[in-house]
């Protein structure tokens, strides 16, 4: 791209491990949060006096609260197995983007202040004081980790750099060095209920608009309800679904699925956001407050089930943490897991033969599927391990004729992050995002060339936004990324729709349920 101030990495024919180049990404830093975005989260507005001591105290506090942090700081043997596993290392070749080196930015401070060897023999074990330079490095490189957990899969002890990044960000927030993008968004959710700061009336307009569009197109009055008391399902979805392409096509798809299955549902204006950026900054407290909004909405609306829309880290928080943060969910219908993923809902309906599709309606596309990191490595779908890989693929296969997977080391548990996860989806980190996308772009290029793939489907709002933005840097076009439920929406046959048989204009009741 002509206007960028950095070079887009070359796609490599054979991905070999790159040689390291020290310091090439040390300039990459997101904007710092100012007071208005720090204080609502309970963090100081600027770097506090005596920040070193405050930071060390916070580190001690976190080590006492998180076993993961304590064990991971002690257990790394520097075997190097993780060094080539991070997409940011592959894309930037900066050695501090090797997972273990990123952890070491934190570990060397931990060793200096908390271990015998580091206190008395710092040089020997690579321990250092917490200086301003170290803090700068922290700010830079802990914002070059998308918390995707790929390193954790390959580490012999399961050391998850995401846990260290979260801790580091929390320590930085505590001393007043927060990241603008994440903290601004979190304060919006606290105030308004979603990441975009969309107020209730705006949501209502959008949803009404969708109803009109769908009815114009299909002749069926599919509802997109807001704040409907007594609905069976509360749908919690990333706010991007309400307006941006290709997200909104996914939302249209969820509505059609619910409609066709006869499940009443509603969105809540109080909890109109599935994303939970509290996780990105490692703040249990903030994460919990955001999650509790969902509980409040479910109680207020008197729903029986909670279903999450397509979003990666939101699904992690939902699947793995929601019960912890905002449970117990004993007031909901015990027949269904809490929460459910929209893909689980659709997949189950397909299994029960309750949905009909005309796959040929997706024949203009040859699909591949991008496993989002947080869905793949931090959560599950369905009843058995690995359902998170199977279910979205089965939905794609039920709705499309042409599907090919990318190479096996880049999908499922080995999937590469899109490059924009973990609170990095901001324009001030564009260089990082483009470079971090490299391994995924290479894998995609291969299936494009070998299988004629034209589109990549995903079930994460961050992935979709990130790919629409970085595709052009790699000579793809923005619209080559699609939502899984967009495919569902394209292919689903709604009972009573315009072109169904000859009875198109008849009211719904007249049509026999064929499926």
């Amino acid at each position, binding site marked *: 791209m002509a206007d960028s101030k950095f070079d887009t990495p070359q796609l490599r024919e054979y991905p070999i*491990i790159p*040689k*390291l180049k020290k310091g090439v990404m040390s300039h990459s830093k997101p904007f710092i949060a100012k007071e208005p975005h720090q204080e609502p989260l309970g963090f100081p507005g600027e770097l506090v006096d005596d920040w070193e001591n405050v930071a060390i105290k916070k580190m001690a506090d976190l*080590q006492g*609260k*998180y*076993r*993961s942090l*304590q*064990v991971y700081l*002690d*257990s*790394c*043997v*520097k*075997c*190097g*197995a*993780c*060094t*080539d*596993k991070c997409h940011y290392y592959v894309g930037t070749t900066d*050695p501090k983007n090797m997972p*273990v*080196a990123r952890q*070491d930015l934190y570990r060397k401070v931990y060793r200096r202040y908390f*271990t015998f*060897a580091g206190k008395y023999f710092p*040089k*020997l074990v*690579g321990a250092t004081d917490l200086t301003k330079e170290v803090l700068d490095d922290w700010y830079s490189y802990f914002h070059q980790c998308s918390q995707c*957990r790929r390193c954790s*899969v*390959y*580490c*012999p*002890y*399961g*050391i*998850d750099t995401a846990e260290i990044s979260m801790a580091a960000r929390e320590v930085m927030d505590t001393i007043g060095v927060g990241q603008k993008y994440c903290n601004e968004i979190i304060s919006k959710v606290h105030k308004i209920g979603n990441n975009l700061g969309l107020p209730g009336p705006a949501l209502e307009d959008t949803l009404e608009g969708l109803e009109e569009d769908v009815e114009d197109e299909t002749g069926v009055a599919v509802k997109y309800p807001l704040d409907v008391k007594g609905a069976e399902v509360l749908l919690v979805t990333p706010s991007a679904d309400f307006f941006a392409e290709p997200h909104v096509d996914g939302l249209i798809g969820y509505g059609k699925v619910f409609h066709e299955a006869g499940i009443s549902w509603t969105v809540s204006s109080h909890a109109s956001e599935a994303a939970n950026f509290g996780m990105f900054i490692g703040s*249990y*407290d903030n994460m*919990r407050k955001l999650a*509790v909004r969902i509980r409040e909405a479910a109680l207020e609306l008197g729903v029986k089930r909670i279903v999450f829309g397509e979003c990666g880290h939101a699904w992690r928080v939902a*699947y*793995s*943490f929601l*019960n*912890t943060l905002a*449970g*117990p969910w004993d007031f909901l219908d015990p027949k269904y*897991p*809490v*929460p459910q993923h929209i893909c689980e809902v659709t997949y189950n309906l397909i299994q029960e033969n309750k949905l009909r599709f005309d796959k040929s309606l997706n024949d203009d596309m040859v699909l591949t599927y991008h496993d989002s990191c947080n869905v793949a*490595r*931090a959560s*599950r779908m369905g009843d058995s*391990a690995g359902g*998170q890989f199977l279910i979205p693929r089965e939905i794609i296969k039920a709705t499309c004729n042409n599907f090919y997977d990318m190479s096996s080391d880049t999908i499922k*548990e080995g999937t590469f992050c899109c490059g924009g996860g973990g609170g990095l989806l901001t324009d001030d980190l564009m260089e990082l995002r483009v470079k971090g996308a490299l391994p995924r772009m290479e894998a995609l290029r291969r299936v494009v060339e070998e299988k004629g793939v034209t589109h990549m489907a995903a079930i994460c709002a961050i992935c979709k936004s990130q790919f629409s933005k970085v595709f052009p840097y790699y000579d793809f076009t923005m619209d080559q990324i699609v939502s899984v439920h967009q495919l569902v929406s394209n292919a689903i046959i709604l009972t009573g729709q315009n072109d169904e048989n000859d009875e198109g204009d008849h009211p719904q009741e007249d049509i026999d349920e064929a499926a």
Partner: protein
Amino acid sequence: MQISMLSFSIAALFYIAFFILAYGLVAKILQYKNTPAPLKIPTMPAPTTQAGVVFRMSKEVVFFESLFKSSKITWLFGWLFHFGLFLDMLRHLRYFIDPVWFWVVIIQPFGKYGSILMLVGLVGLLARRIVVDRVRYISAPSDHLILVLLLCITTTGMAMSFYLGADVISVKSFFVGLLTFNIQNIPADLVLISHLVMVAFLMIIFPYSKLLHAPGLFFSPSRNQVDNAREKRHLAKWAQELEKTN
């Protein structure tokens, strides 16, 4: 029988080393055990039952499954070293048990070959640490020195069992004596003494170094948690407190 100064010193060293190892390890294990894991963070796909977790862990402990996925070379050298070490530690049981158990007798020759595996593994790991730029970058002096220490222990041990021989009867009575607080003489053999001093040093640094990966693996939440977050509410004490204040 006159007990030499040297024997006293080595005896004292081993008592101290054992005490530090035991104290340090117990303290660390208690720390890990008492630190809550407030969130469910198993690396997925993860087992959905406790039995499944035991199986997953066993594969990690015995075969280094994750390392196998990530780097075949590191896996090979790492596994050879640890497996050799395991055989050799079993072999060394004969210095502590009287009469020697039958199976310990059987495995004696394997223990001997174990040392070769250790040597190959350690040389490979050290070479990788020096040659591969990424691994060199992440290595502190201590990372090299631990390998050198292990290499010296291995080679002094091999020198004794393959070439020089050692007065194993006296060594055994010394260690059995240590166990029964009845100190015996140890042969004043330079190779033997250096072997023993280095082993004692290794015991001392164990709980204060990255050798903590041994207990650490068992406490790693990404490996030891069951994937059942939706079915069972998981709540840490300190998180429970938050619910009260809201």
